[in-house]
C-alpha cells in the first residue's frame, strides 16, 4: 500500500502544467512503475490518500479527477 501511495504521489507531483488527473492516467503511471499493481489496489490507495488529506477530488459533475491538495485550483475558484 505504501509503495502504491508513493507511486501515486510521485506521478501527481511530476505534472508540469496539469494538476488534476483522471484515475486511468494514475493507474497507467502506477502500473508502469509497479507492473504487478492491480486496479482495485490502486483505487484503494487513492481512497486512502483522499482520507488522509493528501489528495482531493475535483469533479465537474460528470467526471471526477484527482489532484494533490494545495496544487492548482483549490477550494474556490
Amino acid at each position: 500500500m505504501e509503495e502504491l501511495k508513493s507511486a501515486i504521489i510521485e506521478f501527481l507531483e511530476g505534472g508540469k502544467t496539469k494538476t488534476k488527473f483522471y484515475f486511468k492516467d494514475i493507474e497507467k503511471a502506477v502500473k508502469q512503475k509497479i507492473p504487478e499493481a492491480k486496479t482495485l489496489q490502486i483505487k484503494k490507495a487513492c481512497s486512502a490518500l483522499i482520507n488522509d488529506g493528501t489528495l482531493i477530488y475535483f469533479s465537474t459533475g460528470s467526471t471526477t479527477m484527482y489532484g494533490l491538495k494545495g496544487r492548482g485550483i483549490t477550494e474556490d475558484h
Partner: protein
Amino acid sequence: MAFEPKRPQKKINYEEIRLYSDAELNSTTEEELKNFKIKHDIPMCEDLEKGPWPSFVADAKQGALHRRKLADGRVLIPRDVIEDLLGQLELSFVHGETHWKHGGIVGVFGYGGGVIGRYSDLQEEYPAIAHFHTVRVNQPASKFYDTDFLKGLADLWEYRGSGLLNLHGSTGDLVLLGTITDQLEPLFQEMAHVLDTDLGGSGSNLRTPSCCIGKARCEYACYDTQAMCYEMTMHYQDELHRPAFPYKFKFKFDGCPNGCVASIARSDIAFIGTWRDDIRIDQNAVQGYIAGEYAPNAGAHKGRDWGKFDIQKEVIDLCPTGCMSLEGGKLVIDNANCTRCMHCINTMPRALRPGTDTGISMLFGAKAPILEGAQMSTLVIPFIKAEPPYDNIKEVIEKVFEWWMEEGKNRERLGETVQRVGLPKFLEILEVPAAPQMVKEPRSNPYIFWKEEDVPGGFQRDINEFRKRHKR
C-alpha cells in the same frame, strides 16, 4: 418477501427534528404573492408564469417571499439567494447564454460524488449565488418517501441551503439546488445522522441506481425491482462514492418491458423484467374484451369514443412479430416469437398476463446525453433469474466493470467502448454466445460477424474471389 434492511432503519419523527414553526412555514398569503416583486426586474421570467402550466418562476417567487419573512438567523445562507437566482436567469435569457460555471473541489470529506460545484460568473452582480452548489440525495427505491422525512429534509434545506428542490433529477436523485461551500459538511452530517440518508452519485461513479414501482403496486413486475435496486445500491457503495471509472455508469431497474424508468434508453446496464415461459391467457376474458364487457387498456383511453373494440385491428394486427392469431375464436400466441412489446398485455390486462417463470433481460450500453449521441442499449443476456442475493447478476456486472475500467477511455461510456471494440469482443468478455435474440430489428438484421470456429462445420471464404465481386 418482506423487506430486510441491511442495517437498522431509523424512524424519523418530524416533530422531534423540525426547525421551523407552522407560523414560519405558512407566512405568505395569496394576496402578498400577487403583489410581490423581487429585487431584480425579471419580465422574461415573469412571462413564463402566464402559460397554462404551473410555473417554476411562481414557485421560486413564493420561496423568495418566504425567505424574506424569516427572522434573522433563521437561514444560514443569504436570504435573497432565490432573488439573485431569478435575476441571473433573466440576464441569461437576455444574453442567450449561461452564467454558471460548474465543477470544482466542493464535496464532503471522503466522498467523490454527490455534490456538484456551481458558481456564478457574475458574483459581484449576484453575490447571493456566488456559490450555488447542487447536492444529490439518494432516493429510496421507487421514491417511496415518508412525509416526516420529506418535511425534515425541506426544513434542513431551507436552513442550510436555498430551499429549492428538484423532485427529482433525471438520474433519479432528489436534488437540492444551491448552497455555499461552508454549509456542505454540516448539511451532510445532519442528512446522515438525523435523516438517516446518503448522498447520491455524480462524477465518474456508479450513479444512484433507480427502479420502477415494481411489485409494490404493479401486477406486471416480473421481479422485485425495489429489492434488487436496494441490494445493488448497498453492495456497490464503494463504486457509488469513490470514483475510479472512466466516466459515469448507470443501473436502472424496470420490472417489465413497459420500461417505466426507461432503462433501455439511458442506463449502461438495463435490468428489464421478462419471462421465459408462455404469456398466460384467460380465454374467457378474451371473449369478454371481444364482446365489449371490459374496457381495453383498463379504461385508460375511455375519455373518447373509439368505437367497438376490434381485437384483430387493435391487438393481433399490431403485434410487431405477427405471432398472434385467432383460431376458432381462441387467441393463440406463438410465444417463441414474442419480443415482449407488451402491447397485447397492456390492451387486455384481464385476459393476458406475463408468464410465471420470470427473471430479467440485461441490456448494455445506453446513454442519453443532452446534446448529441443518444444510443439505445443492446440486448446481451436475454434471460437470467433475478433472486436474492443476485450473485449470478453481480458476477456479470463485475465482469463488465473490470473490462470497462481496463478498456474504456477517459469520458467514454460503456456503450461507446462496446461500439469501438465491437459487440463480439464484449460477448467474449461476458462469455455469452451470440444468439438470435441479439438482432437490431426482430429477426431481420443480425450484426454478429461469425468466426469460422463459431459455426458448426466452419466455412471457407476466398477473399480474392470476394473482391472480384465487391470492390473496396
